[in-house]
């Protein structure tokens, strides 16, 4: 791996070297290393680009890293990764994509991650997207996450895009069986002329299931963001979504939350807020000795922490 790729790897997965446990590193469309364990198998797909990650029932405290790195300008790819997680497993999956584009051509990574999470299994899924490089070519990323949760299964998803992605369409779809839990925390920052669209749709199908979707975003400069969420309560369930955006400069943020209850015992809540940094927050931090710019930075860092 070269220095640029190493830097991308550090940004998206906090990794300095190859990770412990199971992993598959994809760099510029090729495999740059892979490892399986007794409980976690990684199999290359035959019919299309991508891998199957198969985790045995009852696997505990193991992790899988599947970072994707693009450092050649002009690469465009579409990858399908499927995760099969056995019953009662408890694992962490770290995905993410880093694009370095130092050239004139657009670099683009589209990926569909599909999760089949077995009964009472628990998964923590961390996904980070990052871009660097000063070429004129755009860095484009369109991640789609499809989540099927069986009875009592739990998925906690942390998805972060802080820097460098010019255009993104982030789609998340979920369906939940009885007693399943979905927790999503999204952190998003756009700057320059970037565009980010984020779109959640969750079907709460089984009694006692719940979904909690929290999105925090900061839109700077002339960037644009659109937030869509749709929670369908088809059972005795609870659903909560919250989008909270800080808007700066000449940015534009739109939030379109939707709730549909098709069961009298579905309890659904949405909260949405868009606003600039409160003046009193800046003043407070300035009375502690920070400049206005430093105060702004602290507030944003805290908000997206």
């Amino acid at each position, binding site marked *: 791996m070269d220095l640029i790729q190493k830097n991308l790897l550090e940004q998206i997965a906090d990794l300095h070297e190859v990770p412990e446990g199971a992993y598959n590193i994809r760099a510029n469309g090729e495999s740059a290393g892979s490892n399986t364990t007794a409980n976690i198998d990684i199999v290359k797909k035959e019919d299309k680009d991508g891998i199957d990650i198969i985790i045995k029932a009852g696997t505990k405290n193991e992790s899988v890293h599947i970072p994707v790195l693009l450092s050649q300008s002009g690469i465009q790819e579409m990858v399908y990764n499927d995760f099969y997680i056995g019953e009662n497993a408890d694992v962490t999956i770290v995905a993410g994509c880093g694009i370095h584009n130092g050239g004139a051509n657009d670099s683009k990574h589209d990926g569909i991650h599909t999760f089949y999470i077995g009964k009472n299994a628990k998964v923590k899924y961390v996904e980070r997207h990052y871009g660097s490089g000063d070429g004129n070519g755009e860095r484009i990323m369109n991640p789609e996450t499809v989540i099927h949760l069986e009875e009592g299964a739990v998925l906690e998803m942390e998805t972060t895009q802080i820097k460098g992605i010019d255009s993104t369409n982030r789609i998340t779809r979920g369906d939940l069986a009885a007693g399943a839990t979905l927790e999503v925390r999204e952190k998003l920052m756009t700057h320059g002329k970037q565009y980010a669209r984020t779109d959640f749709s969750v079907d709460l199908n089984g009694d006692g299931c719940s979904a909690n979707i929290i999105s*925090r975003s900061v839109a700077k400069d002339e960037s644009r963001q659109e937030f869509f969420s749709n929670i369908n309560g088809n059972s005795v369930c609870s659903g909560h979504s919250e989008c*909270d955006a800080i808007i700066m400069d000449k940015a534009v943020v739109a939030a379109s939350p939707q709730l549909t209850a098709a069961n009298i015992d579905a309890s659904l809540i949405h909260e949405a807020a868009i606003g600039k940094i*409160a003046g*009193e*927050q800046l*003043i*407070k*931090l*300035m*009375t*502690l*000795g*920070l*400049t*206005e710019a430093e105060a702004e930075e*602290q*507030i944003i*860092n*805290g*908000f*997206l*922490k």
Partner: protein
Amino acid sequence: MLELKNICYEVETEKGKKEILKNVNLKIDEHFVAITGPNGGGKSTLAKMIAGIIQPTSGQILLDGEDITNLGITERANKGISFAFQQPVHFKGLTVKDLISIAAGKKMSVTDVCDILSEVGLCARNYVNREINNSLSGGELKRIEIAMILARSTKLSIFDEPEAGIDLWSFTSLIKVFEKMRDDINGTILIISHQEKILEIADKIVVIAAGEIENEGKKEDILPSLLYKTTSCQNLTDKQ
């Protein structure tokens, strides 16, 4: 130490210009000074003006003889002025530890933060990683606000009605915090308050009403006249 010279502050209202502060002249050299007076009299305006949040229409503010009238909030903070808000500000995502560290101007260990929180009567470990938001009670937020001032430990600390918005129970222990601060802090404490208990521990009391200094002097001289003046006392006197 702090000197206000001919301070005037006017605002535009629908009915024309309104004078909030009228030619205020004040010298503060004492260790613990309380400013009191009726609501709307200009006390908070004066405090914000000293911190640089409001600019006077005319007049001068001197700190240790240096004219700081045209300095901004940050510059004044760095020259040694601290200001505790009447209404503590909420921050999404910033924790007690973050703010205390920013106030102290250095990276703080959990132990450092705990020491400061203990000073204001908070059982520290429960608070270090709490977010500064409405999950904290009014009394807790006030104490954290005061803790930030302690962490800065500057030569001038201004408190704008620390008793506002907190219950009697919290207030009683808050008085102890101020008593301790009076004994420990080396600089000057300037506190805006309506509370007799706070006025009682002041070296000097300044009474501001209708934008003017109505009275100022030693606690012994000012406090009796203030207590006599309150409406409830007068009513009682009338009935007797």
